[in-house]
């Protein structure tokens, strides 16, 4: 292995061609880096927005979720009979269920007195709702009627509720025209559909929204014992339940929501288009650089052919230049991407981060960009006629 490497090792011509013109190399790297950052940002925003649509979904303490087949997304949830959860309890692998009411109510900002729609969740304070272990303690406070837990990540338009609460003030306001008191804070995070969230008991929920049929819920959380095969339980529940409910795994529940935003809105398209623009810009820059590089060195390439180098070997030199450019452009793009993600996270509360899968996708896009440009630039090499150099 080492032996053959020593025999095949050559002067790193591609590297030297690139680095002996530092200014051009810098322009190339800046261009590729720019394209990479554009792709990172656009794809990051896209994924971040989709992730943001399921901030609450992820937090539920559930293995399987019951929803109405008429529910389209978190902003249009339909109810189904609560009895279905009782039927689910009959399955031997089901260890617990939580009925949850889910609707948008008008929250009055206690400071400005303006109202805004907030996502309200109603559940039995005694049963588990969120995976956060500290939550069940806070939930106890909801046992008193008219108490709510306010999401401290809610947008500021809902009023300075967390600040007031932490100062020790009694925060009271109106929800759907009825008086409520903030009994604690939780951290859920705003999503696409909801600018803010609050959690309350089912009893309070029904008081705030008396039109809700008493036996109707919007989602049912199902917890299974640790050994249970989720898919198997899901199949057997689906088979036994009437078709006014749909059984989803928690992942499917999350995907169901993301999918709504992906397919029913043009968000995905807009950001993918943005990333594609970055790709095209990068292609043009790399092509320009490689093409002028090949043109400038055409006589030298012709000399190498006259010396007996194969055309394929010279193609390889250009291809390697492409690979070097891709790597050298990707590294700063990756680092800047990470810095910009941190900036976006801190300023918009959008959950964007350097997902390894996206990091790979952008790398391969950049590599593809460079290789495609290199292979077009190679065609210039065919013009190198070794007979012309004498």
């Amino acid at each position, binding site marked *: 292995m080492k032996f053959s490497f*020593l*025999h095949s*090792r*050559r*002067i790193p*011509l591609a590297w*030297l*061609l690139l680095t*002996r*013109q530092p200014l051009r190399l810098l322009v190339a790297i800046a261009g590729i880096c720019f394209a990479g950052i554009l792709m990172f940002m656009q794809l990051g925003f896209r994924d971040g927005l989709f992730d943001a649509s399921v901030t609450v979904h992820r937090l539920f303490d559930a293995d399987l979720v019951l929803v109405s087949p008429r529910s389209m997304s978190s902003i249009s949830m339909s109810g189904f009979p609560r009895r279905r959860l009782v039927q689910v309890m009959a399955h031997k692998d089901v260890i617990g269920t939580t009925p949850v009411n889910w609707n948008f109510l008008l929250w009055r900002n206690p400071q400005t007195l303006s109202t805004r729609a907030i996502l309200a969740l109603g559940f039995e304070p005694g049963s588990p709702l969120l995976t956060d272990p500290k939550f069940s303690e806070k939930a106890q406070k909801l046992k008193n009627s008219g108490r709510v837990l306010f999401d401290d990540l809610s947008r500021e338009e809902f009023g300075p509720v967390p600040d007031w609460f932490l100062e020790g003030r009694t925060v009271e306001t109106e929800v759907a025209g009825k008086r409520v008191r903030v009994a604690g804070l939780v951290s859920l995070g705003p999503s696409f559909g909801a600018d803010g969230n609050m959690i309350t008991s089912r009893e309070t929920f029904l008081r705030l929204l008396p039109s809700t049929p008493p036996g109707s819920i919007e989602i049912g959380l199902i917890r299974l014992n640790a050994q249970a095969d989720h898919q198997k339980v899901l199949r057997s529940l689906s088979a036994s339940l009437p078709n006014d409910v749909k059984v989803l795994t928690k992942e499917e529940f999350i995907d169901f929501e993301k999918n709504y935003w992906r397919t029913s809105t043009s968000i995905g398209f807009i950001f993918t288009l943005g990333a594609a623009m970055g790709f095209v810009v990068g292609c043009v820059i790399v092509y320009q650089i490689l093409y002028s590089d090949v043109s400038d*060195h055409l*006589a*030298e390439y012709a*000399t*190498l*052919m*006259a*010396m*007996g*180098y*194969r055309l394929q070997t010279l193609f390889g030199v250009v291809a390697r230049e492409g690979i070097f450019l891709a790597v050298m452009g990707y590294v700063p793009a990756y680092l800047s991407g990470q810095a910009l993600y941190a900036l976006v996270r801190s300023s918009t509360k959008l959950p964007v981060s350097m997902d390894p899968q996206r990091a790979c996708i952008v790398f391969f896009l950049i590599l593809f960009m460079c290789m495609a440009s290199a292979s077009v630039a190679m065609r210039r090499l065919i013009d190198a*006629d*070794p*007979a012309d*150099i*004498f």
Partner: protein
Amino acid sequence: MKLTNNSQNNFSSVQIDGLSHWFGNGLTRKQVLYSVSMTINPGEVVLLTGPSGCGKTTLLTLIGALRRVQKGELSVLGLQLNGSRRTARQILRKNIGMIFQGHNLLRCLTAEQNVQMGADLLKGLSYRKRREHSRNWLIEVGLEDQMDKLPHDLSGGQKQRVAIARALSANPKLLLADEPTSALDSVTGREIVSLLKRLATEQNCSVLMVTHDPRILDVADRLLKMEDGRILPIVE
């Protein structure tokens, strides 16, 4: 390859018989070589002179397997070039050293790396061996102190020395040089040509050199004159 077999026995390095060449096509088609015939024996140093535009460079590029043969017989190091395949010509070129009018060094490589581009064509040698080989050639041409300089920082004569080292480092059996001294002053030109002749003869490498320069004619074993695409009969 066949090439190595042939070079061991007493085949001629170059054997040309009735070689004609045209440029352009249709009405602009113009003949530049008229049934040229000549032979170069192994180890021989042949000079080719003649007025500008008489077809010397064309003949050299044909022998160097850089152009397709149109008419006539041309065999170089035992390979018949008329009707030869592209890859066969490319492999043949590894055995032909070429020195151009301009030095044609790679601008982005140091003197040593330029020479190594020639040495890298040698099969079966490790990187270190090839590097050593290139250094030895640079020492041979008297550039041991200039190895790490870029062509940009070398004088014309030094560049041509690097070109000679590069051509010889691939261990060629035939060296083609087209007016290697035209860009140099006469003293340097003389030096370069003597060096070229000495090193090539040591390697038992045949040389065909095109030149206008009357002061260097004496290095030749044989002198060929060309006019209007024809080789003139030799007058001793």
